């Protein structure tokens, strides 16, 4: 199972703080995003943001990444304001 976590504005936009996805369905981060967008078409634009920050098991990752059973994938919105 992959635990997916949404933080800050993403949590409000998507209307959920966390959900689980079967590792049988998604082997990589890209597949996870595709899967989530297919399941929830309204999430597609939010998940397509190239400045979205992604952490796997509390470590930042860039680009695509393999997923393993038990991983936690957290998504964070970009912030620039000052």
């Amino acid at each position, binding site marked *: 199972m992959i635990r997916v976590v949404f933080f800050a504005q993403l*949590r409000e936009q998507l209307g959920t703080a966390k959900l689980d996805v079967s590792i049988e369905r998604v082997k990589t981060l890209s597949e996870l995003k595709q899967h989530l967008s297919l399941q929830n078409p309204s999430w597609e634009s939010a998940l397509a943001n190239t400045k979205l920050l992604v952490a796997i098991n509390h470590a*930042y990752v860039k680009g695509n990444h393999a997923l393993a059973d038990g991983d936690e994938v957290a998504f964070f919105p970009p912030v620039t304001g000052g």
Partner: protein
Amino acid sequence: MNDEQLLRYSRQIMLPDVDIDGQEKLLAARVLIIGLGGLGSPVAMYLAAAGIGHLVLADFDTVDLTNLQRQIAHTSARIGVNKAVSAARSLRELNPDIVLDCIETILDAENLAEQINHADVVVDCTDNFATRFAINAVCVAAKVPLVSGAAIRLEGQVAVFDARTESSPCYRCLYEEDSDDATCAANGVLAPLVGIIGSMQALEAIKLICGFGTGLTGRLLLLDARHMQWREMKLPKDQQCPVCGTP
């Protein structure tokens, strides 16, 4: 330090992590604060109060009525005044013991490099990716530590990028240079949020100067103030990073 300074800073000199030695480092330090808005206000006020000997305040913008809800270094009477100048007036009242320089123009590449090269620490309190990338690139080249904070709506981020350390990531390791900014003018921001993030930036700047504790280098802290939840992620250096990676 004279008697008045010993008394003024006594409550932090009392801390074993600071002590006389640390306070002297603070008094000898020069910190560049870029942006004197929501983040820059608490950063500048705390660093001035703590006795950073030389603060350089850079902001080309002027104080607007809509700023005053959160930009606490400014006042209603100073609407229309340059933000660096306005902040300097508050800081002067707070601590007449330190040197304050104001830069009221947009920092072009040459001025930015000159200012960063002269700084011990740079605190990025700006509000857009383009400026943040420009500041980061110079800090990496000059090997000057950068304390980066950002806040909007009810969320914030803070990190330290320390190019003096080979393994440190830089701001460009975190974000790609390809999209638009979300502005406070369009998205809103709650007042104390910038105080929280700015205060953490000031604290990290003091730690960098005094050299104690565990810094935020290589870590990114994220705040969801709506649910008052913090998250921390490890932020490794991107070896392919066009700014700090190995060519």
